[in-house]
């Protein structure tokens, strides 16, 4: 009897607690009213020091906190004024003069100067800092030499403050994408007195980026930072273009688990998700007024072929493997139409550049090539190992390709998955036959993809070496004076690369997000680049309907 009473008591307590917790206004509804953007950011940022960290979640927060000399317009990706109100480029393209906006201020009210940039770039390029993105400034004269410690006098590097508001940059040669680099966080200025208060310029781990210490120069200021929980930004009242900023604040959540993130979106805890779980995509694609947004992304998914070990040292084997991959079927059946088949390394429409398509899915020709290589119908095939880093999606793709090679060429390919760091080690040591690889562009230019395969390049990892290719990418392209001429050079390089087939391009990535209907001013673009200055929230929009 007593136990039944106890049962009942527990049940009643549980139910009342549950009911009491229900209801209440969702983040999204409250955010729409107050102009606070709730943003799923993928993971906890390593930190917020623009010269030290690397990574996509870091990029999102840093680009809201700081602003570069020039920024990308989110609609066109063309550069537009940031800290610099204008810039001049000399006839030969080698001297870029930035005119700093006299209204540009640090969040503590101090004016921004050209000296801030000279000091900040010296910091990024100092060998002792170990800045992983220091190569972003390599187009600047002597920057590379300074970064490698070959010269120690920074005045030899081509960045000079002519006066407080004029920054003159001398480049090694014409670099059409240089202005774009000014929107990469590694080239941003940091506030010298703040950094020096907490340590040397080259210290990686001082507390200058903490809430109470941080001085930044962007449209938003750091308001709070709770580790692994949330980072809050609030609108800056010292930002030069503050009248244009419509959001009052942003809250970034470290949404590491994509499935949990999707659930948070469904109950109105997020305006925007960093990603969408693959399994949920077909459901969202079929919805009316779907919050699902997909757009081509500046990244290529490919397989590296080791050209120094058999059987992939044989060009015909490499070609046969590539021609036997049915990219359309992979995209449609395995990846639910979320990718675009790729036939070269540079993604299509990279600032108007379309790579040549030199081959297609061709099982007949693939079989013939394999026969010419000495393995007719797979006879005598020595076996092949495909290495990928542990992940369900990579596994699915590898299994699909394994099956295609079996069906078309009648050859066996073994799959090996490796934990991330082990995999990276295998790649750098070229300890593989075929290996998965992906490359996401740092800036919109074919150069960013084609320079991967320079002889001995850190990301080449295939053993591909072609002096003519190096010549085209390193010499001919920078010398080209018109866009058409330059793109023609890239096309030739790309053709050379695909003739040698040191890689199997598989697909071009897409960016995938869930976005609440109230979110405005957030266009899709190739860089998946958001400029928070442009974003606003429509007040009377309901949260997206949940679906399963």
């Amino acid at each position, binding site marked *: 009897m007593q*136990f039944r009473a106890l049962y009942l008591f527990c049940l009643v307590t549980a139910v009342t607690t549950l009911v009491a917790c229900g209801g209440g206004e969702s983040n999204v509804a409250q955010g729409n009213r107050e102009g606070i953007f709730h943003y799923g950011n993928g993971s906890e940022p390593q930190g917020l020091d623009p010269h030290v960290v690397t990574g996509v979640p870091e990029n999102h927060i840093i680009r809201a906190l700081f602003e570069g000399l020039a920024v990308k317009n989110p609609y066109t990706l063309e550069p537009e004024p940031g800290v610099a109100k204008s810039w001049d480029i000399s006839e030969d393209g080698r001297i870029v003069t930035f005119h700093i906006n006299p209204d540009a201020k640090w969040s503590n009210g101090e004016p921004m100067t050209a000296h801030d940039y000279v000091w900040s770039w010296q910091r990024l390029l100092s060998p002792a800092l170990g800045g992983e993105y220091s190569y972003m400034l390599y187009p600047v004269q002597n920057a590379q030499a300074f970064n490698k410690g070959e010269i120690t006098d920074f005045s030899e590097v081509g960045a000079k403050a002519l006066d407080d508001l004029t920054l003159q940059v001398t480049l090694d040669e014409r670099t059409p994408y240089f202005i774009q680099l000014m929107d990469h966080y590694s080239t941003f200025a940091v506030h010298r007195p703040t950094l020096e208060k907490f340590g040397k310029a080259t210290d*990686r781990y001082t507390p200058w980026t903490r809430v109470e210490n941080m001085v930044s120069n962007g449209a938003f200021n750091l308001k709070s930072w709770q580790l*692994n929980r949330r980072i809050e930004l609030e609108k800056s009242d010292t930002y030069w273009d503050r009248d244009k900023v419509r959001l009052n604040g942003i809250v970034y959540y470290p949404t*590491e688990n994509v499935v949990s993130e999707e*659930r948070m979106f469904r109950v109105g805890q997020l305006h925007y998700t960093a990603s969408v779980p693959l399994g949920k995509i077909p459901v969202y694609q079929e919805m009316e007024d779907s919050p699902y947004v997909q757009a081509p992304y500046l990244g290529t998914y490919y397989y590296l072929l080791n050209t120094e070990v058999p059987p992939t040292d044989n060009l015909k084997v490499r070609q046969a493997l590539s021609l036997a991959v049915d990219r359309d079927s992979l995209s449609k059946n395995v990846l639910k139409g979320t990718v675009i088949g790729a036939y070269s390394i540079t993604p299509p429409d990279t600032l108007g550049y379309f790579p040549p398509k030199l081959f297609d899915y061709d099982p007949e020709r693939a079989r013939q090539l394999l026969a010419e290589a000495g393995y007719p119908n797979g006879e005598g095939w020595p076996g092949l190992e495909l290495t990928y880093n542990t992940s369900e999606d990579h596994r699915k793709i590898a299994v699909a390709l394994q099956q295609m090679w079996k069906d078309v060429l009648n050859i066996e390919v073994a799959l090996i998955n490796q934990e991330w760091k082990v995999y990276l080690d295998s790649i750098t040591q070229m300890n593989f036959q075929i290996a998965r690889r992906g490359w996401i562009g740092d800036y919109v230019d074919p150069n960013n993809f084609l320079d991967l395969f320079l002889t001995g390049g850190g990301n080449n990892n295939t053993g591909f070496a072609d002096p003519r290719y190096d010549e085209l990418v390193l010499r001919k392209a920078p010398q080209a004076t018109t866009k058409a001429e330059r793109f023609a050079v890239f096309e030739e390089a790309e053709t050379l690369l695909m003739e040698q087939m040191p890689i199997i391009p598989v697909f071009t990535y897409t960016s995938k997000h869930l976005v609440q209907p109230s979110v405005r001013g957030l266009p899709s673009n190739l860089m998946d680049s958001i400029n928070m200055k442009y974003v606003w929230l429509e007040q009377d929009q309901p949260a997206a309907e949940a679906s399963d």
Partner: protein
Amino acid sequence: MFRFISMRLLQAIPVILVVITATFFLVRAAPGGPFDSEKPVTREVKAALEAQYKLDLPMFQQYTAYLGDLARGDLGPSFKYPGRSVNELIAAGFPVTAELGFYALLVALSIGGLAGIIAALRPNTAQDYIPMSAAMIGICMPSFLLGPLLVLVFGIYLDWLPVSGWGDIPGDKILPSITLGAGYAAYIARLGRAGMLEVLSQDYIRTARAKGLPEWQVVVKHSLRGGLIPVVAFLGPAFAGLLSGSFVVETIFQIPGLGRFYVQAAFNRDYTMILGTTVFLSVLIVLFNLLSDVLAAWMNPRLRAQFGDN
């Protein structure tokens, strides 16, 4: 008792030293280092990075330097999060994990204890089979299945509880605590049932019933203390397990606890972070095992006699 405790603490020192040494060399033996990334850095940059974190020193020197810092309570800077020390990261994550573990333990004890007692009162009847089958399911059901199921039902269909977070929205602590506690509740139910069954068959219980005591007095006053000894012995390891094993639940519910840092540190080869959390957790595990031994001794007069204090 004092002698017993200090002996156990002294024994713990070599154990923890072995843990430190093994972890220190194992993490460095794993392929790939903290500064390997998808975009490989130049040799110069890598050397500068390693110099900043003293990785350029000979291995043994790194080891002694680490022990020296550790003796001062300094676990070093995190490699993955520049600007954060391991002490700080543990200080940020541990209270959350401990709170989660504590609630989970409460859930486990109340559900599991109750189920175990109820089952033991009428062995081999429906009152026994139903809670015990539920316990079996609880043991078999992993938290990465139970968590999303609970979220789907209570968070999304019924919309009663938040789907994620910790201390942000009222009620967001309920589902993670239940998810983490459920598996342990099942163990406690089985342990409690076994312990209670043994006690309930003792002569002194028959005596208590014979002299006409109401059933609840027999259970609460005379059987519980003896019957729950196995449960108490399990509590120390259970709490240690809850603290070090909450990674999955923390990930499902986006909880800013230590478990996430710990597992990610291993993937990131964040040497100082792996070491720091391992040392921290191993100290805790040793302490909790000790605590549960002391509690068990207090509850069991036969064991207590061995210490010779009273």
